[in-house]
């Protein structure tokens, strides 16, 4: 019973396509996140939702659009994929945003743009 699950695990697609990555957590958390790990292995936050409301929106191209249908799900839709979008995308969740609330991560989605 995976706590934070992402699908798909691998995604290979052509430049210019539109794709979505799904994330679900069964921890009962109310806050969810998307991170991008680039080729240099840095993990950088992209978005965060608390109870379906956007609370963190880093400088991310507007081709990236998160959608939270309920507090257990946070999906990431990417339009017009570019070569630079190739990365590993991690979803995470936490109970609230207080300092003692560590984030729990999914196993990542490796996105490769051809």
């Amino acid at each position, binding site marked *: 019973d995976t706590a*934070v699950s992402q699908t798909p695990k691998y995604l290979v697609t052509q430049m210019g396509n539109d794709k979505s990555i799904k994330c679900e957590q069964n921890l009962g958390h109310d*806050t969810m*996140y998307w991170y991008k790990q680039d080729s*240099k*292995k*840095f*993990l*950088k*936050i992209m978005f*965060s939702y608390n109870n379906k409301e956007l*609370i*963190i929106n880093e400088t991310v191209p507007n081709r990236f659009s998160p959608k939270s249908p309920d507090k257990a799900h946070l999906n990431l839709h990417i339009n017009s994929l570019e070569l630079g979008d190739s990365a590993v995308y*991690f979803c*995470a969740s*936490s109970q*609230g*945003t*207080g*300092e*003692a*609330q*560590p*984030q*729990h*991560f*999914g*196993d*990542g989605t490796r996105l490769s743009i051809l």
Partner: protein
Amino acid sequence: DQQVKQNSPSLSVQEGRISILNCDYTNSMFDYFLWYKKYPAEGPTFLISISSIKDKNEDGRFTVFLNKSAKHLSLHIVPSQPGDSAVYFCAAKYGAAGNKLTFGGGTRVLVKP
């Protein structure tokens, strides 16, 4: 603009010995620090954290030390075990930014039997 830096990309240590991982930060507003451990093809797993009002936090074999004046923290693993072989990420946050974590680039630890 790397606000959190892990200057050692890798570390090799003998089983049973101490592993010391270092992390430096530049943003004096950071008030909470975390260490995550990551195995290949898995997501980061929370390990231990420390608030800026403390200088040490211990949990079993893991101890984190914080030196605020030097903007430096370290993670000690004693004794190191082969299962500790992984990439370790240092992360920092501050209250006004909510739960936004800023990560370092990671240190790959190899524990040799």
